[in-house]
Every structure is written in structure tokens, then in C-alpha cells.
């Protein structure tokens, strides 16, 4: 690795070659203000706030450079702060504020807005420039995320995320000059674009211009309705992130606190999506073993991620036969809540209100994605709230989340294994499946460290491994961040076309970088450092579990014994499986 020696405000520091000044300064403990730069993205260089001075052998350059987009050059000294730079930054922030609605009090980002923070840090008390606020209609067509172009500061993060990280191309700049705005590509409403509702745009927006559709009111209405039994499920990734909203460290496991807090706001019964994750493994694992032994429709591709499912239906529908027909854990949990649980608890499924707490905006759309989501005879899940929405509710109810006494989940579909909990991290579904598939194929349990498939862990965009199942090699691949998916699929297509051996037997895909722990509905400020902490939290949770393989979950064994018979049974197919259709984008 080659390095360059530079100075930040005269202080020498050595950084990796190719490091941008902004990142180098951060390493030197110097924060350069910026509104558009984001560590997940290539520098777009829009806001102009991060400008710095360059000093080298020729003296101080008269031109300022953008710290976000300029690579460090050997021997140069970067002046990041001085009164002149401060003045320029201030002017730019004042100009941005002059064109901003400044409706902080009623904005979803009040308190977490990056523009608000800048304004506060620069102590801006009045806007010297004439206001020029454009009132433009909101776009809430997706029913999952809302685009409010009036608040947009044109930082370009959302479009970059959508295009570069996710390869979806639903968002684009429209218009020119002061009329420039973000909109659905082709200036059509978002729901008619190839948008997959992953919500990464909302997670990266520095202000309140793109946000999750707030549906907290619906939960409160259900709680208030005496006829309804409100049943909640919480997704794996929520437990290691929601604490951040209450001053806890990212990655801190708060499962019991969430159960307790949910009950405190009036939820009747609390289950855990992790249970359904175990159930998914039983169905999908069985499906895999079946396809693997029959050599049919391989590679098997995971289908837990609704954003990925929609992406596949829109951009890679040739892969439909390879998709696991198993529903996502959320949908399995909903289905069994309104059948199995309703039976045991002697409740009318129509009077159960099933709410799921998800790290994800696409889950909001998943609950109605096809008729299969109504398998219980009514809508299997009634409402999805993101982590951010739930945190707001807890705050409204004055819950002292940090100190609330943890509680346990309800029976009979609340207990989970370590395999279920790692569903929230990239590679986790694969690892959980391998733990059970190994058993299903060999009838032997993986023991000791062999249970940890570290080969599929980590933040590499594409992870490939060959797993030895008692002499039989199983080739697996894991991709997260949808731009990485096409590479894998192309390998499969190429092999097929050339009649070569398939490169993989099993592929796991999660739409968001890092998996659900960094989903579009998670607390703001997600970047790699935070991803790592949340991931660590889930692996810790896994280690703490009494059982770490889905098939060992006693409640899973019970549900098959009492209700489904066996994995992939007729009843399981009716309730736990689904089908996919091609959804071409930009219909002619």
C-alpha cells in the first residue's frame, strides 16, 4: 500500500494514496464541514462548503479545492480553517438556508438534520439574503418513502445512492439552474419508476427531503380499538440499532427493551421476526437441499429482502425460477400469527392487527405485494413501522428506553435461535441456511467453531466461498448493495450460455450495503463504522443464544409437529411460500 505524506494545517500526517483531503483531515482529527459528502459515496462535490486552501512549494494556491473530491498530493499542506474560509462557508450556508423552507419544527429531520446542524454550528441567527423558496408537491406515490423536493438541497446523495450503490436509477436530477430538482427519472412519480423502495435515499438524505412514510398513527389507532388484538414482531436488525435514538451505542442489543417498550405503548402480544427467520431456514434450507440433490433450478437465490425481490422482478426476471419460493420472515410471521397463533389463542384472525417493526422501507410495500400476502384469509401483516418511526413513538410515550426493564417475547412464536438473529446482516441468511442444510444433508450437527461460517461474513461487496459438506463442495456467494448483484448474475448467465458448470449453488442477496442493519429505515447517520458495530451486535446476539441452529428451535419443532407437518408440506406451501412475476420497468 503506497502512502503520501501531507500536512493538515501544518500538522504532518501520512495517509493512504488516493485519500481525499476530507478523509485525511478526519484522520488528523480535523472536521471539515460539508453537506453533500458521504463516506458511502464518490464525491459529488455539490455543496461547496468543504473548500480548503492548498499550500505547496509554489505557495498558497489562489484556487480553493473541494476537500471531498481532491486527493491528497505528497508534500502539500491543506489549510482547512481560517477566517476567510469561514466567511465563504458561512455565505454558502446562508444562501442555502435562504432557499430552504426552514420548517424545522414540523420536519422529520428536526434534531437530526445536517443542514440544521451546520446552521447551529455557524451560529446563523438571520438570513441576510432574499428568500426564494420553491413550493413543490410531495411525491408519496410509493407508499413507503416520501419525496419532498421543496426541502431538497440538491446534494445529490439520493440520486447517487440510487444509481451507484443500488444500480436502480429511479431518482435523477430534472431541470437546470435554479429549477434543478430531484424527481423520479423521466419526471414521473416514483412509483412508476423502477424504484424498489429500499429507502437508501432516505437514509442518506442530509435533510428532510426524502423520508419514510410515517404510519405511526395507524398503530395508535389499532391500539385504541378495543376489538383488535395488536400483535407485533420485530426484525433482527432493529434490536441493534434503535438504542442509538436513545443514546445507546450502535450495536447494543436491546431486544428485551423493545419487547417491554412495545407492551408499554399498548401492544398486546410481542413476537419476534427471528422466529420466522428460523422458519424461513427450515423452508428455504429444505428447498435448497431438494434442488441441490436434484440439481434443479440452481443456483438457489434468497428472497428475504423485498427490495431485492422487486429489483429482480424488474431487472433480472430471467432469474425468477432460481428464486427461493419461501416468503420473507416478515411475511411468514404474519401468516402464522393469523393462523397458527390465532388458533392457539382462539382469536379471530380478522381481529388481529399485525404490526411489524422493520429496519426497512421496502417492507411497507411488501405486505401488499401480491395475493400471497393474504394467505391467512386476511392481510397477513397490517402495518410496517420502521425503526425510526418506532423510536419516535417510544419518545412520544415518554419511555425511558435506556433504563426500561427488559422483558421476554410471547409464546408460541417468539423464541429464536442465533441463526435467526443473523438474518439482519449480510451473509447471515447464508450462514443460517448452511448451519441447517448441513444437518439436513448429513444428519450430523456442526460442532464447535465449525458453526461460524466466517467465509460469508464481512463487508466485501461480493463474498464467495466453497463449503465442504462432508466431501461435497457447495459453492455459495453473497452480495449486498445491489450494484454488486449484476456481477454475480452475469457469471451465472455466462456459465449457462457457455454450457459450463454453474459457478454457484446458493446465492444470498441483500439490497442494502451491510444488510438490514443498514436498511433504509434505520436510525440516521449510518456509515461503515456504525455498520460494523451493529453487525458485531448481531453476531454477539447469535453467540448468546441457547440454540444457534434454526432446526434446534423447540418452538420451530413444535410448529411443524402441531401445525405444518413437515417443511415444504402442502400447508407450508400455502402459507409460507409465494411466487414472482416479471415487472418490466418503463412499460411502453
Amino acid at each position, binding site marked *: 500500500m503506497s502512502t503520501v505524506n501531507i500536512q493538515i494545517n501544518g500538522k504532518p500526517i501520512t495517509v493512504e494514496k488516493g485519500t481525499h483531503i476530507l478523509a485525511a483531515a478526519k484522520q488528523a482529527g480535523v472536521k471539515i464541514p460539508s453537506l453533500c459528502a458521504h463516506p458511502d459515496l464518490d464525491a459529488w462535490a455539490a455543496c461547496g462548503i468543504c473548500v480548503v486552501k492548498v499550500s505547496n512549494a509554489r505557495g498558497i494556491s489562489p484556487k480553493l479545492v*473541494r476537500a471531498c473530491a481532491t486527493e491528497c498530493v505528497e508534500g502539500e499542506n491543506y489549510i482547512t480553517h481560517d477566517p476567510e474560509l469561514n466567511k465563504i462557508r458561512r455565505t454558502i450556508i446562508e444562501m442555502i438556508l435562504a432557499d430552504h423552507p426552514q420548517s424545522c419544527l414540523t420536519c422529520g429531520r428536526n434534531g437530526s438534520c445536517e443542514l440544521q446542524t451546520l446552521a447551529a454550528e455557524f451560529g446563523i441567527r438571520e438570513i441576510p439574503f432574499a428568500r*426564494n423558496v420553491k413550493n413543490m408537491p410531495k411525491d408519496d406515490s410509493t407508499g413507503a418513502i416520501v419525496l419532498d423536493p421543496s426541502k431538497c438541497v440538491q446534494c445529490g446523495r439520493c440520486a447517487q445512492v440510487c444509481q451507484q450503490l443500488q444500480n436502480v436509477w429511479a431518482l435523477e436530477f430534472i431541470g437546470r439552474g435554479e429549477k434543478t430538482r430531484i424527481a423520479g427519472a423521466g419526471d414521473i412519480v416514483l412509483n412508476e419508476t423502477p424504484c424498489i423502495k429500499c429507502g437508501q435515499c432516505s437514509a442518506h438524505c442530509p435533510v428532510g427531503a426524502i423520508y419514510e412514510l410515517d404510519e405511526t398513527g395507524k398503530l395508535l389507532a389499532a391500539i385504541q380499538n378495543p376489538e383488535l388484538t395488536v400483535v407485533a414482531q420485530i426484525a433482527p436488525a432493529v434490536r441493534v440499532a434503535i438504542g442509538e435514538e436513545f443514546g445507546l451505542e450502535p450495536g447494543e442489543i436491546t431486544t428485551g427493551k423493545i419487547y417491554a417498550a412495545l407492551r408499554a405503548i399498548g401492544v398486546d402480544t410481542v413476537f419476534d421476526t427471528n422466529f420466522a427467520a428460523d422458519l424461513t431456514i427450515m423452508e428455504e434450507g429444505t428447498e435448497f437441499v431438494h434442488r441441490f440433490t436434484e440439481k434443479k433450478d440452481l443456483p438457489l437465490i434468497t428472497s428475504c429482502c423485498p427490495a431485492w425481490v422487486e429489483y429482480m422482478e424488474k431487472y433480472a426476471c430471467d432469474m425468477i425460477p432460481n428464486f427461493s419460493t419461501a416468503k420473507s420472515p416478515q411475511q411468514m410471521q404474519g401468516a402464522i400469527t393469523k393462523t397458527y397463533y390465532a388458533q392457539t389463542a382462539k382469536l379471530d384472525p380478522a381481529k388481529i392487527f399485525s404490526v411489524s417493526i422493520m429496519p426497512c422501507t421496502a417492507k411497507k410495500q411488501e405486505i401488499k405485494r401480491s395475493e400471497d400476502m393474504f394467505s391467512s384469509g386476511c392481510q397477513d401483516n397490517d402495518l410496517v413501522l420502521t425503526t425510526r418511526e418506532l423510536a419516535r413513538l417510544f419518545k412520544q410515550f415518554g419511555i425511558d428506553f435506556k433504563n426500561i426493564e427488559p422483558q421476554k417475547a410471547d409464546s408460541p412464536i417468539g423464541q429464536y435461535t442465533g441463526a435467526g438473529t443473523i438474518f439482519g446482516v449480510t451473509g447471515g441468511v447464508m450462514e443460517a441456511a448452511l448451519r441447517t442444510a448441513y444437518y439436513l444433508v448429513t444428519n450430523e450437527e456442526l460442532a464447535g467453531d465449525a458453526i461460524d461460517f466466517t467465509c460469508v461474513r464481512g463487508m466485501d461487496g461480493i463474498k464467495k466461498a466453497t463449503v465442504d459438506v462432508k466431501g461435497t463442495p457447495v459453492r455459495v456467494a453473497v452480495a449486498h448493495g445491489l450494484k454488486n448483484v449484476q456481477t454475480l448474475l452475469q457469471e451465472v448467465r455466462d456459465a449457462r450460455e457457455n454450457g459450463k458448470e454453474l459457478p454457484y449453488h446458493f446465492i444470498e442477496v441483500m439490497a442494502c450495503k451491510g444488510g438490514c442493519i443498514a436498511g433504509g429505515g434505520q436510525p440516521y447517520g449510518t456509515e461503515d463504522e456504525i455498520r460494523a458495530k451493529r453487525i458485531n451486535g448481531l453476531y454477539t446476539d447469535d453467540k448468546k443464544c441457547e440454540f444457534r441452529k434454526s432446526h434446534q428451535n423447540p418452538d420451530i419443532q413444535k410448529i411443524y409437529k402441531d401445525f405444518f407437518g413437515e417443511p415444504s408440506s402442502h400447508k407450508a406451501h400455502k402459507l409460507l411460500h409465494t411466487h414472482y412475476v416479471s415487472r418490466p420497468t418503463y412499460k411502453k
Partner: protein
Amino acid sequence: MAYKHYVLVCGGTGCESSKADDIFTNLKTEVANAGLEHDVQVVKTGCFGFCEKGPIVKVLPEDAFYVEVKPSDAEEIVKETLIKGRIVKRLAYADESGKTSAVPEEIGFYQKQMRIVLRNCGLIDPEKIDEYIARDGYAALEKVLFEMTPDQVIEEMKISGLRGRGGAGFPTWMKWNFTKQVESDVKYIVCNADEGDPGAYMDRSTLEGDPHSVLEAMAIAGYTVGANQGFIYIRAEYPLAIKRLEIAMAQAREYGLLGQNILGSDFSFDIEIRLGAGAFVCGEETALLASIEGKRGMPTPKPPFPAVCGLWKKPTVINNVETWANVPVIITKGGKWFASIGTEKSSGTKVFALTGKIKNSGLVEVPMGTTLREIVYDIGGGIKGGKAFKAVQTGGPSGGVITAKMIDTPIDFDNLVAAGSMMGSGGMIVMDEDDCIIDVAKFYQEFCVEESCGKCSPCRIGTRKLYDILTKISEGKGTMEDLEQLKEIGEAMKRAALCGLGQTAPNPVLSSLHYFYDEYLEHINEKKCRAGKCKKLITYTINDNCRGCTLCARKCPVNCISGEVRQKHTIDQTKCIKCGECMKNCKFDAIEKR
């Protein structure tokens, strides 16, 4: 077979819109009618530059120079000049004193000009490659392919001192050398023909009048840096230039001057045209490259510079039309010859599009270092209608004003920057006493508001803020604080905008503020616009000269003038829209503007 006479008809866009096509057809018919088709060749050429007096027809070898020709003049030109050998006096150029000049050498407009870039414009038929070749065309390409190494070409370019004519004046040889030094399997050559400054049309005229000069130069650069593919990015609003480029490219391919193994060498090079939709920002090189790639035309940060990482991330030489057009001559006549023209740091010539309140508007090409006085008075013939010279705006929306004080400053890249303006692509708009400096700054700022790509906040928001403040001042609502804000915003834009467009967009404001501070103060403190341009600051009143003829009242579009017949009329100031119709129509000097 040589002809006895050549009749050259200007076929540039300007003259074509004044029926040059019909003139051409009529001349051909008249020549045929007179049975002279074997003795006379009628040629449609590129622009002569003297657009003020177009359409232009020139007859060789007599060098008879006819201006403001109409299609109906064809018969007389054929009968008098071609058959009888006489000059048609009424079509010859006449200066203010009434002195007619029948040959260009006698016309002030041409006397101080030196045509290198426009060497073939108005002389050859741009749609015939043979005519270009007859004027030493493609000799430079042949020379570099068979007699020079790429390093020698770079050296020659270095000696010539040619600097980019697109505006910033970066040494061309350095650009080429950067690209040459980068190891890459693919490199590109790009011609920036996205001419966007209001009033500028030298690139259009060059491409219309001499397209091969650009093609040849691009091939030379391709050979020098090791590129085999070129792109010409041209705005779709230039259909004639596009058509002539396409013809030129087809002919060049046919002659083996483009395509595989040019002139039998191992060097292959071809060119494609890419049409721009007319966004000003696409003249900025990184935005232009993005647009060629099919992306939204938005600039990206530099570095990396296109020379190293350009089109599709490959090393790319990008020069503008005028720069390219200089290259073949530099190769054939030598860098030393080129360097001997112009000033020490700005060699060669510069083409300016001279417009505004000037008698002889048109395209002028002068050696660098020519003074503004020479351009405005000697070439341009001075200010129209005997008004006083106020300033010249150079560099379009990126430039600034040059005042009467600097009228004797030699014009080159560095002097213009020192004066707070810039060369830009060469737009030169002359203002007289009737032009309000705030109105002019507002005009350019409005242009920038529309043409900012919208990507970076200093430019997107700053242009609009400047425009709003200028509007406020022009309405007499300005305060001293506003002047401070203009400077503050202008400075932030200059320092923090992403691309050249944004960094230079405040120039018209800052430079006018610098040189015409008094005029700003007048608007603010006295609520007065001395040029009478800012409508909110002027009032029309009727004085005692009024005879009550009622003409003004009848002409007023908003019916705000009232009065009895033969009685003095009055203007209702609350309704008046300051259109000036009353003043224009009054026969008794009874309307006053203050």
C-alpha cells in the same frame, strides 16, 4: 480548367438568413443566361466576417466587394462586372463620409485584420475538399505523419505558444503532452464546438466556412498523443455547420484522410459528431464529456483533468474549434512563425465577434495585442449614431467590462484577466452611453441563472441571489448593504463554485461594480438611471411644447395619457409602463424622460 471569374457568395448562417441562397441561385442562372458558365464559377463560401453589411458577394480576380446584396442584384452584377468589367458602385461599401471602396483592402473593417483562423472563410467552397487541399489543406497532416515524430509535433506546438481559445488560455502543447504521456490503450480527441456565449459565433463560422481545418487538426493531435477516435461536440442549433462537417468528414474518408491507415500510414483516426442540446454549461469540458457519454451535462471536479482521465475515464485532449483551426497552419508554417504574431505570452490571432452599439459588427480576427481602440474605432468604425463609448463586455457571461480608460490596453489573455474580465471565447459587446451598467450586469446574470447546471450551491443559488439584488437596485430599492452582498456572494461564488461557469459567473457584476461604482451609487442614492434603461427609475412627462395633437394618447398602449384636443396632455404616472411609445411618436419634443 481555370475560370476567368469567380463569384464568391457568403454562405454563412447570417447571410443565408438574408437570402444568400437566392443570390447564389440567381447568380448561377444569370451566368448561365449570359452563356458564361464555362468562364465563371459561382461559389458559396463561408463567412466573410463583415456581417453588418451582409449578404456579401465578392468577384475575383477583380476583388470587387459587394455588400448588402439582394437576390435581384444578380443580373446587374453579371452584366456589369462579369461582362463589362465595371464595378457596380451602388453595391460597393461606402463609409460614413460617403467614400466608396470597391475592394476589401480599402475598407477599414479589413485593414487591421489578420486572418489565420479564418484563412479560408469567404474564400473556398467549404463543401469541396479539393478547394481546401488547394489551399495547402491536409499538407500539415501529411507532414506530421511522414516527417515528424509526436515529440516534434509537441515541440512545434510549444514553440508556437498557442493557448486554448476557449477562454482560459491554457497552453495547448501542455494539454497534448499530458495526454501523450499517460499510458492507455484508448485515448480520445474532442472538439468543443458548443459555443454558448451570447453573441459569439466565431466557432460556428469557422466550421461553416472551413470544416476541414478542424478535422485535419484533430487528426494531427490524434497522431501526436496516440488517439484513434475523435468527437466533435456541437450544438444542434448549428445545422449548417453540422451539415458541412458531415460533408467534410465523408469527403475526407473518401480521400483516405480519415479512417483506417491515413494516407497509407499505420495511423488510423476517425471522427464522430455528437449533438448538444444547447446547454451553456456543456461548453465546460467535464460537463461536455459527461454529455458525450450520454449523461446529464454536469461538471465534475478537476483534478482529474480530462487530459489524464476524460471521456469514459480515458485520457482526452479537448480543444475548442478556434484552437484546432490554428493547428494546421502552425505545422505548415512553423511554430516560430506563429509565435512572431501577437504578444509574447499570447501568440497568434484572436477572432472576436464584435457586436453591440458598433457601426461595423461582424467577425474580426486580429493579432493578439491589438488595442481595444483599434478594434472599436478602426475596425468597428466607432459607435453607432455618434454616441459616446462606454465600455466593452468581453468574455460574455464569464467576463467583465473594459472601460474607456483601458481602451489602449493591448488585448491578450493576461491583460484581460488583470482587468477583471477574461478572453472567453471572444464575444465582444460594445456599449454606449445609452446602456445602463446595471441593466447589462442583470442581463448576464439572468443568463447565468438559466444556464447554471444547478449542481453546486454557490452557482445555483448565488446567480439567482445576484440577479435578485441587481433587480432590486434597478428598481431603485437598493441599499448600500446590497452592494456589500453583491461582493460577498460574488466572492463566495468565485472561490467555491465547482466549475469555470460558476467561478466566473459573478464577473460581470464584480467588474461593473468595480469600474462603475458611481452608477450603482446613483441608482441607490439618487434613484437615477443615467442611461434611462431602468424603467422603474424613469418618468415620462409632457412639457409645454405639447400642442394637444392627441397622437401620444392614441399610441399609448395602456391609455394613461389624457387631455383635451389642442390642450396640454398629462401622463398618469400610476399607470405608465415606461414603454416610451409617446416619446417616440411625439412630433413636438413635448415628452421628457427623466
